[in-house]
């Protein structure tokens, strides 16, 4: 989530007058690899960082206000991008509005309004869980595209306690599994148990009779059974 590409729309305000054509050209020069220093208020170290701006388009202009849309690598500061564009143009600019419209797999079209969520929980109180099930997504649905390992039901309880995955527990595994690769570990029922780091290859995982095949990276809490 933190490392995924982000997409935004926003408004930036120029501090002086300048022809639109120059602005469009300038925005283009801010695509590709750029360097920026995180703002003073940021929660990361303030040193020069390199980031990729996949696109930076000016959609509309109203006087000194520009509506823009941009797709950037994680860790790109949009306020900084706007400020730097202003410096480049020589008139100065600042960001006045910003809305994130995509974060990795999550986009604006599928997002839930706070009111919908309130409704879902109110319906639940009245005994209907339909709306809740259509509003909340199980954690299994948001995983990064990592190789999967499926384990025996009998192995899940020790994994949930943080034990490494042992060879006899493995039932199926993706071909891409290699030592050092992060994998998602599922039970046979399709329940996510943990994200782990494989210590052996896919073939070894299946051929080994004993020994550790993956070490836990992030273990979930088990699904509570009422």
């Amino acid at each position, binding site marked *: *989530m*933190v490392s995924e590409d982000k997409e935004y729309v926003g408004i930036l305000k120029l501090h002086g007058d300048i022809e639109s054509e120059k602005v469009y050209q300038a925005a283009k020069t801010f695509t590709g690899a750029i360097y920026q220093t995180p703002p003073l208020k940021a929660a990361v170290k303030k040193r020069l960082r390199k980031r990729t701006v996949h696109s930076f388009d000016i959609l509309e202009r109203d006087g000194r206000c520009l509506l823009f849309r941009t797709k950037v690598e994680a860790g790109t500061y949009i*306020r900084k991008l706007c400020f730097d564009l202003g410096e480049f143009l020589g008139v100065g600019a600042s*960001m006045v*509005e*910003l*809305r*994130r*419209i*995509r*974060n990795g797999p*999550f*986009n*604006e079209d*599928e*997002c*839930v*309004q*706070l009111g919908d*969520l*309130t409704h879902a*929980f109110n319906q*639940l109180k009245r005994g209907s*869980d339909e709306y*809740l*099930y259509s*509003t*909340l*997504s*199980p*954690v*299994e*649905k*948001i995983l990064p*595209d990592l*190789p*999967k390992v*499926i384990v025996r039901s009998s192995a899940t309880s020790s994994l949930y306690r943080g034990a490494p995955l042992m060879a006899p527990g*493995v*039932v*199926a*595994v*993706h*071909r*891409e599994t290699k030592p050092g690769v992060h994998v998602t570990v*599922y039970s*046979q*029922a*399709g*329940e*996510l148990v943990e994200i782990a780091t494989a210590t052996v290859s*896919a*073939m070894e995982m*299946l051929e080994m009779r004993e020994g550790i095949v993956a070490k836990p990276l992030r273990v*979930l*809490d088990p*699904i*509570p*059974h*009422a």
Partner: protein
Amino acid sequence: MEHIRILKEVDAGNLLHILDHDLEEIGPRDLYVTPSALISRCFVNIDKPRGPSSHEVAAWVGKMAGAAKVGHGGTLEPLAEKPPRKRCPNSHP
């Protein structure tokens, strides 16, 4: 992603399902039988309005859900409108 079928055991229609279908075929109700189970391991992509902080919104959602742990997937800066995810894992109802 390309999927494989190296199986140790052959009793495994469902395994292929998990490997091949990216779990899309497994509905939340199969895994999460009760609402509280779902609430304990779910996420929701919220359209956060401008104003309240991500932290505040996460707290409201957690309270509504009766979830013991709630987190959010990233903050935007003060002027911004939307951190598109709230997680509410681990409720202890």
